[in-house]
């Protein structure tokens, strides 16, 4: 099976000479459809660089990024932008919704930019909003929503249509613990419907809801979680001391 996202020995260097910063070093990572992977690491470990390169918003200095088996670097800038819009959805800490558009318009905008007819786009947008439990707010404007609701809209926008890859940068950063947990559950559910997800977070609570946690340090992948035993084992008496 082809992984939805594959990074092959990706390195990224910013600047030159004494200002040179090696943000990523030989990073290889594969994320399958239906899987949510969390990236953790201290500040400056390369988390954000990894996400922007995975989303082809930046080019790696060396190595390859494949989305659904396709290396986008072979396409023109215009075609890359189109493919990016069709295949990848982004969720940010500060939501990045357009204030002058309604919830429904925010969600359908990427589809309409891709030439999807207004009616079809509306139908797909409402489906995404329903899955996120926020369809009844479709006619509202972002400033009429709570932080948690805005992030739901941002996730709906990120998964609307045929998106295959969902990238989220600190998606719970602006939310309290209850809303943060709700958002993580929704991201997990979106991935379980067939999208591959990558979230960057410094929050161990929210990272632990991912299927796999990958640890970065100084631009390298240093470790990742193994598949843990099921939670039912927590209910089995262990050895007494």
């Amino acid at each position, binding site marked *: 099976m082809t992984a939805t996202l594959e990074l092959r020995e990706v390195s990224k260097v910013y600047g030159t000479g004494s200002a040179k910063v090696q943000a990523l070093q030989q990073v290889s990572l594969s994320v399958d459809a239906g899987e949510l992977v969390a990236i953790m690491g201290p500040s400056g470990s390369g988390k954000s660089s990894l996400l922007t390169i995975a989303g082809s918003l930046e080019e790696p200095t060396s190595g390859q990024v494949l989305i659904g088996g396709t290396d986008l670097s072979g396409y023109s800038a215009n075609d890359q932008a189109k493919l990016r819009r069709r295949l990848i959805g982004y969720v940010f800490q500060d939501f990045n919704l357009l204030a002058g558009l309604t919830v429904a318009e925010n969600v359908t905008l990427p589809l309409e930019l891709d030439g999807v007819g207004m009616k079809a786009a509306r139908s797909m947008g409402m489906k995404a909003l329903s899955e996120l439990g926020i369809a009844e707010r479709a006619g509202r404007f972002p400033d009429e929503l709570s932080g948690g609701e805005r992030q739901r809209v941002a996730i709906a926008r990120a998964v609307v249509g045929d998106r295959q890859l969902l990238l989220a940068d600190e998606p719970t950063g602006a939310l309290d613990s209850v809303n943060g947990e709700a958002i993580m559950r929704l991201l997990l559910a979106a991935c379980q419907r067939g999208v591959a997800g990558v979230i960057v977070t410094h929050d161990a609570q929210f990272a632990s809801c991912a299927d796999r946690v990958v640890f970065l340090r100084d631009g390298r992948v240093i470790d990742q979680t193994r598949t843990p*035993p099921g939670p039912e084992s927590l209910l089995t008496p262990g050895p007494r*001391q």
Partner: protein
Amino acid sequence: MQVRIDSTLQLLLNAGHLDYNEYDNRYGIYLARPVSVRHALLALLSEGPKYGLRLQQEFEERTGEVWPLNVGQVYITLQRLERDGLVESDDAGGAGPQKKFVITQAGDAELAGWLRVPAGDIPPPRDELVIKILTSLRVPGVDVLDILQVHRRHMIELMQRYWRLKAQAAEDDIGLALVADAELYRLEGVVRWLDAAQARLKLHPAPGPAGPPAAAVSEPARRPGAGVQR
């Protein structure tokens, strides 16, 4: 509902006995310590008068039979509670299993007080994880960052299990969610400490195994700073 309560209590009881409890901290000690049978019986009696045998059965049911309690222990505890004026017995039933017990006003007050007494807030006598990290700073050839990462991954894997437990539980299973949250927040605290330790060691690299830093260390990886920055 009974099943849910049992699962929650079982989870609580097991939390101190997991294979992960090599992290011997105050919480682990608190959970591993036998919960007060005395107060558990008062709690059961606060629901209404009960016979000794019924108390023993309910006690075991609610701990998912993880915590067996023989009926003799129940009667000894009830006798002591009666001696202390915290319960009264129905003399009509005579001695033995037909004796019915009821909680007194003093028993209610004792139970209410116990519920509010801070649990395990005394400083830990030792925290094994802290000791391991401190020790690793002094062991030649050991990269403390690797040690920190081993424990960080271990903690996150355990958190993943609690997350899944919570995710699979019914939405209205508040008891289970509260217990899972308590563990998640405790483990998150450990991860935060590991992160803070890493940041601190990056700023102030450890001196190395033999006192004054570089002088006693010949290999390059042990130069100040080199041990914590790759």
